[in-house]
Each structure stands twice: as C-alpha cells, then as structure tokens.
C-alpha cells in the first residue's frame, strides 16, 4: 500500500511540477516541517510547542510551523499525526494525555505503540500541591494529618476527568488512604476562586497555573511532585521526600512522529531537538512555566512513555476512573 501511495504521490508531483524534489528525503528537510499541537492556543503546550518549533527550525535549517489541532482532549490532533505520512514533515507534541487516553477512553482512534514513534521527550515539569489557606496547614505532613483526621471532608479540584491533576489526586488518595471528593473544572485556572474561598481544599496544579496565586499565599503551595525539587518552588519539598515513597507525577512533553520514519530522518530530528534544547533562550523560556528541558534519545524516550502508560493504567484501573454512563 505504501509503495502504491508513494508512486501516486510522486506521479502527482511530477504531473503538477510545482516543486522540484518534493518527496525524496535525500537531504531532509527540504520544506517546512509541521509540528501539530493538539490543544487550543494559549496553554503551556502551546507555549512550549511554539518556543520549541522556533529553535528546532533554526537547528534544522527549515522553518518548523506549529499548528493547533485542538479537540477531544488531544485525541483529534494525535490522530491527525498518527495517520500522516512518516516522512518527518508532520510531527506531534503531546503531554501525558496521550498515554492516559487509551486506558481512560472507551476507544481512541490511534494505536499509541503501533502508529506513533517517540522522537524525543523534550521537557519535564512537576505538578505542585496547593491547598486552601482556610485549612490552616503549613506543611505536607500537616496536610496529610488533616486529611486523615477529617475523612470525607476534603474536595480536590482538577482540570477535568482523566487529566494529570485529577489522576495525581487519585494517586494521592490511593497512596495515603485519604478520602476526598473530586470536583472537576474546565482547566485548573477556573478552580482557584473556589480554592481561595475554601469550597475546594486542594489541587495538584500545573506550576504555570499555580504561580499567580502562591506568590502571595492566596493559596498555599506545599510540595511538588517531581523526583527532585523544582527551581520555581525550590523551598518546597517533593511529595516523595515528604514521606510518600515513589510518588512522582510528571507533566512531560514529547515529540512523536508517525511510525516508519526513515532512520536518518529520525536521527537528524532527534539531534536538532537536542541542539534546540541546549539553547539558553529556550531554557529561560521553559523555566518561566516551570518546565525543564530534557532531550532523550528515541529509545529512552519510548521506554519512558511506555512506563508512564503503565503507571497511569494502574491508577485508572485501581481508582475505577473510567468514564461511566
């Protein structure tokens, strides 16, 4: 099928003779590369994606054009790339939703491991545990104690069913045995008013979402969820070091390509991403939203994505979080 498709593509190219060496990837890239961002403009993925696109473009010598294809919690954009030609001209930047959706949703149109290939994991960013000032807790230990002493009283906010803030909350419940009610919002930002007035008591928020409210303690940051402390909240411990061993939630971002990318193209892309991630301007831009650049090899990246898939699958199954009728 592929050869047939290729042939017709080439025939069309010659027939219309508008571009000279369109489909031959001798010296990839010969035309602009499209980076699909499956979320609406304005969020963290959009910002990181556009910053990355600019610097990877510089490293590749061809512009990388970021294109928003929002819809269905990232499924629409992911599906577009999963079905694209594996020629290195259509790439995807995606967050953990790509590994959560296949378990969470009844069906997704793409097969994560058969249709998509990890090019590189580009960034990591922890979530931050924020609590309402009305709780009067100052440390993570106090917060856990409060939860245990007041079972069923706590509410936690999230950015919607199956989002990382929701699953992090479920993971917290599962690892401490604390009972809390999940209150979903459209985006974590919408929950802060209710958190300030103590209608909801805590949330695992993205750093970008929490920053405006934690600086002056209108909500209290207690801990971050990474394996090491985060520079933005350097004085806050991680959840793991505060006593819940192995608790780690990473809001990572990775570049994916349709499966079947020529080896040289993949190598070239991976190298370009690595070069881009080392630029000081990019590092500074990432740091502002609490993300740290990574730049793994494709193999390491794929293993990481697989591990995250398994981790969330366990949380979803144990917490019985599948959408129910």
């Amino acid at each position, binding site marked *: 099928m592929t050869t047939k498709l290729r042939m017709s593509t080439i025939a069309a190219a010659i027939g219309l003779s508008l571009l000279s060496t369109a489909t031959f990837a001798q010296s990839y890239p010969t035309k602009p590369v499209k980076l699909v961002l499956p979320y609406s403009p304005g969020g963290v993925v959009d910002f990181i994606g556009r910053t990355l696109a600019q610097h990877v473009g510089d490293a590749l010598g061809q512009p990388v054009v970021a294109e928003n294809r929002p819809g269905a919690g990232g499924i629409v954009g992911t599906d577009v790339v999963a079905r694209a030609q594996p020629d290195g001209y259509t790439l995807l930047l995606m967050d953990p939703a790509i590994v959560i959706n296949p378990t969470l949703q009844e069906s997704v149109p793409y097969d994560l491991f058969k249709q998509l290939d990890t090019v590189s994991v580009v960034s990591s960013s922890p979530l931050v545990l924020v609590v309402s000032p009305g709780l009067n807790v100052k440390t993570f230990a106090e917060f856990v104690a409060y939860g245990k002493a007041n079972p069923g009283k706590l509410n936690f906010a999230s950015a919607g069913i199956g989002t990382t803030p929701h699953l992090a909350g479920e993971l917290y419940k599962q690892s401490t045995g604390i009972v809390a009610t999940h209150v979903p919002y459209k985006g974590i930002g919408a929950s802060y008013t209710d958190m300030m007035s103590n209608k909801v008591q805590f949330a695992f928020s993205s750093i970008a979402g929490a*920053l405006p409210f934690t600086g002056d303690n209108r909500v209290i940051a207690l801990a971050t969820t990474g394996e090491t402390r985060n520079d933005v909240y350097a004085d806050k411990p991680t959840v793991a070091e505060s006593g819940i061993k192995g608790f780690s939630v990473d809001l990572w971002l990775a570049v994916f390509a349709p499966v079947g990318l020529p080896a040289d193209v993949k190598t070239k892309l991976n190298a370009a991403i690595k070069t881009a991630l080392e630029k000081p301007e990019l590092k500074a831009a990432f740091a502002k939203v609490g993300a740290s650049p990574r730049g793994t090899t494709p193999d390491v990246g794929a293993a990481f994505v697989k591990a995250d898939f398994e981790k969330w699958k366990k949380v979803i199954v144990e917490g019985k979080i599948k959408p129910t009728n």
Partner: protein
Amino acid sequence: MDFLTNLATGFSVALTVTNLLYCFAGVLLGTLVGVLPGIGPVTTVAMLLPFSFTLPPESALIMLAGIYYGAQYGGSTTAILVNIPGEASSVVTTIDGHKMALAGRAGPALGIAALGSFFAGCVATVLVVVAAPPLASIALSFGPAEYFSLMVCGLVAAIVLARGSVIKALGMVVLGLMFGLVGSDINSGIRRFTFGFRGLADGIEFVALSMAIYGLADIALNLGKKEENAEVHSKIGRVWPTLADIKYCIPSILRGTTLGSILGVLPGGGALLAAFAAYTLEKKVAKKPRRFGHGDIRGVAAPESANNAGAQTSFIPMLTLGIPSNPTMAMMIGAMMIHGISPGPRVMTERPGLFWGVIVSMWLGNLMLVILNLPLVGMWVKLLRMPYRLLYPSIVVFCCIGTYTVNSNLFDVYVMAFFAVFGYVCVKLDCEPAPLILGFVLGPMMEENLRRSLLISRGDAMVFVQEPISLFFLIVAAGLLLIVALPTIRKTREEAMQE
C-alpha cells in the same frame, strides 16, 4: 491623592510613541478580526502571542488588550450589516441592528454602536481605575451556587427577549440548553449526544451554530423572498445618527454601561450576559416596547454599550486577582507569566507602570477606535449598496472559512450545513434563534455549576437559597418569570404575543 499619581504613571507609559503604535496596531487588528466572522480575538491573540514575547511586557499587553476590546467594536459591524454575530455577545445586536439596516438605517445603527461603545469604554475604564479592588471582590464572592442562580436568571431573561410566543421562546431556550449538552461531560467524562462523531466530542462549535442560523439560514430566506418577488435590501439612508437619535439613546447607553460594568467583572459569561441583560432591561423599561425587534435604535445602543463596558471590566479579575474571565484573558495571563510577571494583587504595587499603563491605554484605545470606526461607517454602508446577488456569496465564503479555521476541523463545516437547515425551519415556524443561542451558551455553565454546587454541598440543594447572592438571583428570576407569565395566565393571547 494617589489617584492622580497613578494616572500620571499610566499616561507616561501609554503615551510613548512605541506604546501608542502598539495600541493602534492592536485596535486596528481587533476591529478587522471582529468584522470577519469566525475569527475572533482568541485566535488573533493566540497568533500574536509568540510575537508579543519579543516586546516589552507593557507594549505586549497594551497590544493584546487592544485586540480584545477592538474586536467588540468590529463584532457589531457584521451583526448590523449582514446579520452575522461574530461573537456570542453581538447576538442581541442583530435583533434590532439588522432590522435597522434593512430599513436603510445601517449608518445610524453603526454610529450609535460606536458612540455607545466609546462612552461605555470610557466609563468602564474609569471604574477600573477607581474601583478595581472592590469590584474584584464581587468576582471572589461568586461560587458555583451563585453562578448557577445567575444562569437561571439569564435564561429567564432570554424568554423576555423574544418577540412572539412565550412558550416557543421557552422551548427554544430548552432546545438551546440541550444543544449545549452535546460533547464530553466534564463531571463524568463520557460523551453525550455525539452520535458517534468524534467531531462532536467538544460540543457543537458556537461559530458554526451562529453562522448557520444567522448567516446561511438568513440568506436562504432572503433568496426565497426574492423568488417570491419580495424586496430584500432596501434603500440606503443617512450615514450618521441624528442628534435626536443620540439623545433618545442616552438613557439606554447609561443603563447598558452600568449593567455591563457590573456583569463584566464576573468570570465566565459575564460580558456575554451583559449584552442580553441590557437588551432585556431596555425592553422592560421602554415606553413603547413593541418597537423592539423591529429596528429600535435603543436595541443597538444598550447591548453594544454593555458588551464594551463588560469587555473593559473583565480585565479587573485578571489584573487584580489573576483569574481569567475568558480564554483571551487566560492568554494574557500567559503572556504576563512569560515575561516573568505573576498576575495578581501584587502587580498593582510591584509593576505600577504596567498596571496603570495598560489601563490608560484602554482609554486611548477606545478613543482611537471611535475615530477609526466612525469614518468606516460610511464605507460599510456603501457595502450594502452592493447588489445582494454579489453580497451573499461573499457571506457564504466568510462563513465557510470562518467556521473551518476555528479548529481546523472539517466537521464544524458540516455542522454548519446541518444547522442552516434547522435555522431555516425555525424562522419559518416563528421560533426565534436568540433564546436558543443564549441557552446554548449558558447551558453547559449552568449544568456544570449546578453539579459542582451539589458535589461540594454533598447533595444539599439548600445551598442555592442559603447563599444571599444566589437567593437574590433566584428571586429576580422568579419575578421576571411572573411578569412574563402573567399575561399568558390571564389567557388573552394577543397580550401574550406582545410581551
């Protein structure tokens, strides 16, 4: 006192040549995307966001803000001229605005929209300066229960909007609420009423729905009338509103501005409700309410003032609390954070130049907009001289591109085709679309807040009457419903038809 120092700081920032230029670029672009149906401020701000990172934060925010309120000015233009509301907040403007255009009074309609907006913009800006912190506290006192009751109030007001039968208007509201349910349910995550289409997972796209009902269905009706030998577009009248027009509108503009300024502070739908609420209020207080819906200039002045005032005051929760009241504001928060500024109460004290500069620029921007828009009125009116057979294909083109570019999703285009047929049927049956649109926009928020309130109260429905603000809205809603229902109960159908 501080007030003057603050203003001086603001002017010193906003009046630099660079910032004036960015302000102008912002409002110009805002007007353009406001006029083009489909492409709204959200898309534009998103596209310009990366560019704004290279600017100093003051210039960046001044420009982005300009796009946002500039789009409010532009949005009324298409609503009046071709009956397409570019955004939900200009839906009400179509009701009387387009009727005026058909009667050859497009010029006065556009003129009063610009003047009303300018006045509202100025007043609201002053409000932001003097009363931002107390107004911000309103936003903070709104929890899910308050929002739910506010939505109920808004929906009841939608029935008052309607010209004809109350039962039909109610039906359209409920139908709108049902259309609003399509898509992923945020509480359970399941997809409702998607008929297996993945394109409906995020719900029915507003732009597709409004362009179908207001744009395409309207064209089909007009062409149908042509075939039946009826006149479609009539004479082009005066270009400017007369002094009498303006005088006639002053009370409406004042009421619209007040309502808009207050409702605009509420995150999520506040500015939108403002336009609807202002129209409802006008219709209720007017001496000859019957003229509403048939090209009453007050029906343009009030909602246009309200939505512009709302657009200005929606900056209050963003600037003082760091709470985004709509997607555009969320992006502006993003822009601030990229520049290393955490939006919130401390911006005012830590970055006074930025805070007051942006606010003063809003006033300057409004001035630029009115100067920019008034001469354009003449040009827009000339556009109506274009024969309809040439005009309507252009509208079709803009509907198609507009709908497609919102999400780069073809499915939205088909959704638009479907609702064009639906909209046509509705008009033929005298079922008005405005209540449907309001139900569609408010429905999801209403359900969300209802379920959230009950989730937090652990199922106790008393929250809605225990919270004073919530109780207030419920009483207002009940009162409105009674006013609307009484004539119907009294059974004289003719009376019910009028109101």
